């Protein structure tokens, strides 16, 4: 039966209807999680986070914090261990993944304790009073270090930081490489970043001890497979964890999947505190410890014919998932597995996938999810092939594109691409995007001596993830044992009320995309009513609503899966209504027409029933509905596409249902003097199947594009060599503003998906995949040097320019006594010397005199001698308004009186901690003694993360102050002195 309106061509669907969400949001009456009504006895949580990237926890002392008035409860790792189970780990490993550190911290910002108090202010006061005694361990920071078996494992029971490795072979890559005219390879590194939403995480939880059940509201975005993870962690059946989402969420872009470990913590906090607990993550917490994309090292090699045709690819990927392989990782690595050949027809593929753990925040969903990492390698390689072979890059792309007549197309790695005309879209983009003009412009700019480049990227954007794709990480035998996972259930409910109006509910959990608007259009078109007459609810309550593990807002599944399922549910209602109407109108079901708010007989518009009256019939007069018809009240449809089968025995996997196509090109100019890249033009062509709402599709493209500008040039969760996070504020994690984001030219090409009810495909993530690499290709073209990592900072661009620097004039000597900060990190090293009018022995003796030290150390309150070689100082140190009080422990060793000594020590305070070691040497000179020192220190804690700009200079300043004080002291009384560097470096590194 085909009634009413055909897919995607309705009166309303396909138009840019004003969003129903907007009026409330524009008036400040949105309902975000922190706006919801609160229970009267609500308490507030704050989380103490590790100041160390890697350390054993010797002790946690919460005594003083517990005594603070207003504090209701404090939860530590021990409590969490007693009340819950570890979170699920992505692959079978002897790795325990708790949402809080139990006896060891493995990343900076890892939760260590939770305070529940009367408000957030008091809760944070209590955090300051909790004393943690850490025993620092060396940090494993980079994926290269993780692969080095000489480095200690993060998880002793696992025994290695390489936690998973799989090799795949599709077709005959060895033969293809052996036969290839050329082998061309590229090695690239994709950084850690995240599309940090402006609203942070929020959780409100309560526990009912009588029913042993949790009731949690969180701005979680799905996937709701995580509900199972949460239930297991909380040790309750699924029906004892009621998980709800607020009506509005302030953006997610994948990131709000990562709230789930906090859900466990706050749920347990509510249980321990015996009252409802709210936790609103703050921005510092979010930037340090929420979730990010994986950073990935990729070496990709292609077997290439002379004409640029690729016959085989060989991938070697090292995926850095941070400190734990926490579910759903290693999904970032496998989400693209079916698409590893991108838009190209390449029959032979070899893949080596390795997953490593490092002392960094665990990773998770992020817009693009695996795509940015894959395409940064693949499309840089495509550009490099053109360069190496002296071919037009467009010609290389075109030669490799999957032909239009090959769809549905099965890729080498198992994906079934639904539809497309890639060459057609490419041609349309070049024509409508005025590519020829851009080439002319490049010539003209270069003729003026300017650095101008053009870049391209051809990308396939997958959407609607197969719930079984992550199981590709297991061997076929392991999968067999575990049982198959596949499909992607979408749900939609359409209901009729006693006044005949229409309500819709879906489990799509929008994060601002406007789902309610589109569903109104889709359902209205099916039922022949106005979209404004359809009321849509999208917040989810797992206790009441239809949902499944695939529910949620991810893998761009709304347009292809959820809206299509709503259409199916509406059709089911409509068909039932048609049967009821047929009897009343005295026509056959086939002749019932739904249009303009009426249900009428085809060809006889006067023979009609108002839609509302018909829709109310099953409520008011069910007995009058004839035997041929069913009651039309409420229909819930679960829809899963049959194409999403489990990975096969050869590791082929159809990782996603839909595959959109994107072709981007752009022109950039590089300012030679500053390394700034100016985007001159950017054209992005999208085929996302049937377009349901043009305004929203362009909104998705523009948003993804802006996020990609961030990834390409600005955003990185940078870590120092010691594991300290260096981008802990919005002053250091650089989100692009309006000034950095140009408006792209957006073009469309529509090939409907045959696999989705409305012909639509996902569109939300594509530019995060295509844009960073298109820009990197343009920069490479401009400079004539290949870009191999992101973000393309001015320093990196300048370095790629390889200009020799004018030499340091002989007249300029580097500052002698100031430490030179270590490059790229919060690790500090330095050396220097000073001269004193005193003998070596006199200096040496005062070195062991606490009273003298107390007088000359800047900000020192007292120095106590713990033993002959162990001092403990109490000091207040700071730069400008940034002040903190520290306890500093210093131990001396390798004492060669009065010539040299080695010092090691630690400093601890509310603002952070430091540790390090150094050497001091005393030499007699004609006028007295020359003291020289060097040190190495590392800094953890808040200052390291938020005060990066303060840190290096502050070390110099504190040392300077110390020297002044020492000079004054030495000039007053010859024979009094100390060890300039040794405490100062600690203090310098410990503010």
């Amino acid at each position, binding site marked *: 039966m085909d009634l009413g309106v055909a897919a995607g061509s309705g009166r309303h669907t396909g138009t840019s209807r004003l969003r129903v969400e*907007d009026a409330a949001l*524009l008036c*400040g009456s*949105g309902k975000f999680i*922190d706006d919801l009504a609160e229970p009267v006895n609500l308490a507030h949580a704050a989380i103490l986070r590790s100041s160390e990237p890697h350390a054993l926890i010797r002790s946690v002392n919460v005594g003083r914090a517990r005594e603070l008035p207003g504090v209701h409860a404090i939860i530590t790792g021990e409590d969490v261990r007693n009340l819950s189970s570890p979170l699920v780990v992505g692959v079978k490993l002897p790795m325990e993944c708790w949402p809080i550190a139990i006896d060891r911290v493995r990343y900076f910002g890892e939760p260590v304790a939770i305070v529940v108090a009367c408000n957030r202010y008091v809760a944070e006061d209590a955090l300051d009073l909790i004393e943690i005694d850490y025993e620092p361990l060396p940090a494993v920071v980079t994926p290269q270090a993780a692969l080095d078996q000489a480095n200690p494992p993060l998880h002793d029971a696992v025994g290695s930081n390489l936690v998973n490795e799989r090799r795949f072979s599709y077709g005959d890559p060895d033969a293809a490489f052996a036969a290839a005219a050329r082998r061309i390879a590229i090695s690239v590194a994709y950084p850690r970043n995240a599309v940090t939403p402006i609203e942070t995480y929020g959780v409100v939880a309560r526990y009912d001890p009588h029913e042993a059940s949790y009731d949690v509201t969180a701005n979680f975005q799905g996937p709701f497979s995580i509900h199972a993870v949460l239930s297991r962690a909380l040790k309750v059946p699924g029906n004892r964890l009621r998980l709800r989402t607020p009506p*509005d969420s*302030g953006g997610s872009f994948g990131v709000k999947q990562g709230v789930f470990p906090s859900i466990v913590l706050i749920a347990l906090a509510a249980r321990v505190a015996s009252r409802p607990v709210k936790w609103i993550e703050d*921005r510092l917490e979010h930037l340090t410890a929420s979730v990010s994309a994986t950073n990935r090292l990729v070496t990709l090699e292609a077997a290439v014919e002379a004409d640029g045709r690729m016959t085989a690819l060989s991938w070697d990927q090292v995926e850095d998932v941070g400190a734990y392989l926490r579910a759903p990782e290693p999904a970032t690595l496998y989400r693209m597995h079916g698409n590893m050949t991108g838009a190209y027809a390449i029959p032979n593929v070899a893949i080596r996938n390795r997953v490593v753990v490092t002392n960094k925040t665990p990773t998770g969903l992020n817009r693009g999810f695996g795509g940015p990492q894959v395409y940064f390698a693949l499309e840089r390689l495509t550009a490099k092939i053109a360069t190496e072979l002296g071919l037009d890059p467009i010609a290389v792309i075109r030669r490799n594109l999957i032909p239009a007549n090959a769809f549905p197309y099965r890729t080498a790695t198992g994906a079934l691409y639904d539809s497309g005309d890639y060459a057609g879209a490419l041609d349309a983009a070049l024509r409508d995007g005025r590519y020829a003009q851009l080439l002319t412009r490049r010539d003209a700019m270069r003729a003026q001596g300017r650095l101008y480049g053009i870049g391209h990227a051809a990308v396939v954007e997958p959407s609607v993830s197969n719930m079984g794709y992550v199981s590709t990480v297991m061997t076929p035998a392991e999968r067999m044992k575990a049982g198959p996972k596949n499909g992607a259930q979408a749900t939609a409910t359409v209901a009729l009320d006693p006044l005949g109006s229409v309500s819709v509910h879906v489990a799509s959990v929008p994060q601002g995309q406007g789902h309610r608007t589109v569903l109104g259009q889709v359902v209205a078109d099916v039922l022949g009513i106005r979209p404004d007459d359809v009321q849509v609810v999208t917040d989810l309550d797992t206790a009441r609503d239809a949902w499944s593990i695939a529910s949620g807002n991810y893998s761009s599944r709304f347009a292809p899966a959820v809206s299509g399922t709503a259409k199916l549910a509406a059709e089911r209602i409509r068909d039932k209504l048609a049967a009821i109407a047929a009897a009343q109108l005295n026509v056959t079901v086939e002749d019932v027409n739904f249009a303009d708010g009426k249900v009428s007989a085809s060809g006889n518009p006067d023979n009609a029933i108002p839609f509302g009256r018909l829709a109310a019939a099953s409520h008011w007069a069910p007995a009058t509905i004839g035997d041929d018809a069913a009651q039309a009240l409420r229909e819930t449809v679960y829809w899963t596409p049959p194409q999403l089968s489990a990975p096969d025995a050869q590791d082929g996997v159809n990782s996603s249902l839909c595959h959109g196509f994107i072709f981007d090109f752009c022109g950039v100019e590089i300012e030679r003097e500053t390394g700034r890249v100016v985007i001159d033009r950017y054209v992005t062509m999208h085929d996302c199947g049937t377009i349901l709402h043009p305004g929203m599709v362009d909104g998705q493209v523009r*948003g993804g594009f802006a996020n990609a500008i961030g990834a390409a040039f600005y955003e990185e969760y940078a870590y120092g060599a010691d594991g300290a996070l260096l981008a802990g504020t919005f002053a250091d994690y650089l989100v692009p503003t309006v000034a950095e984001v140009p408006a792209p030219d957006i073009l469309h090409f529509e090939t409907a998906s045959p696999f989705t009810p409305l012909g639509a495909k996902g569109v939300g993530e594509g530019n995060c995949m295509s844009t960073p690499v298109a820009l990197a290709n343009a920069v490479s073209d401009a400079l004539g040097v290949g870009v191999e990592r992101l973000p393309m900072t001015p320093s990196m661009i300048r370095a790629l320019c390889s200009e020799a620097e004018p030499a340091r004039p002989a007249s300029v000597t580097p500052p002698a006594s100031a430490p030179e900060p270590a490059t790229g990190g919060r690790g500090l090293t330095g050396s220097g010397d000073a001269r004193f009018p005193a003998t070596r022995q006199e200096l040496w003796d005062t070195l062991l005199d606490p009273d003298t030290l107390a007088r000359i150390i800047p900000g020192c309150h007292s120095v106590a001698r713990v033993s002959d070689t162990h001092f403990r100082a109490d000091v207040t140190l700071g730069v400008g308004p940034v002040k903190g009080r520290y306890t500093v422990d210093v131990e001396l060793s390798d004492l060669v009186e009065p010539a040299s000594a080695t010092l090691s020590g630690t400093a601890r305070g509310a603002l952070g901690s430091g540790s390090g070691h150094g050497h001091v040497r005393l030499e007699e000179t004609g006028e007295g003694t020359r003291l020289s020192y060097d040190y190495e220190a590392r800094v953890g804690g808040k200052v390291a993360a938020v005060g990066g700009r303060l840190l290096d200079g502050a070390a110099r300043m504190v040392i300077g102050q110390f020297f002044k004080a020492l000079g004054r002291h030495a000039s007053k009384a010859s024979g009094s002195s100390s060890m300039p560097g040794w405490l100062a470096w600690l203090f310098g590194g410990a503010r």
Partner: protein
Amino acid sequence: MPRLSRDETTPVRFTLNGAPVSGRAEPRRLLSDFLRNECGATGTHVGCEHGVCGACTIRIGGTMARSCLTLAVQAEGATIETVEGLAPQPGRLSVLQEAFRRHHALQCGFCTAGILMSLDTLFLDEPDAGEVRIRDVLGGHLCRCTGYEPIVQAAIDAQSRLRSGNTDV
């Protein structure tokens, strides 16, 4: 000279969107928290609490201000306007709000309140502000959803309607 003790709350009274409000706050209470929790004006959102994202931007005494960089006690006696005060009446939108809706200048709507307050203040102070000035003002706000261009277009559209007196939408 009143000295307010750290542990004690003190009355804070000001005019919010034309109506008097009062509540109590200890010295350290941020105005953003006071507006949301004491006044129930949850339209002002908190995104970073260090003055960068702009979501909490309001108008104090006629000028733009980050409410997260203001203490509640500083607001004593002030005239404050927030996003809740922009619409001419319930169920209707202002010219600027309408332009945002028409241009799809918001998606999640979380950063929007602050952006509206900045632009509304700009158009009050400088009715003839050009696009460069509009972009300059928008530069104090972070938005992750829209890519900014629709916001710029909405602002230009709203401004031209305000200037021409054509407020039909």
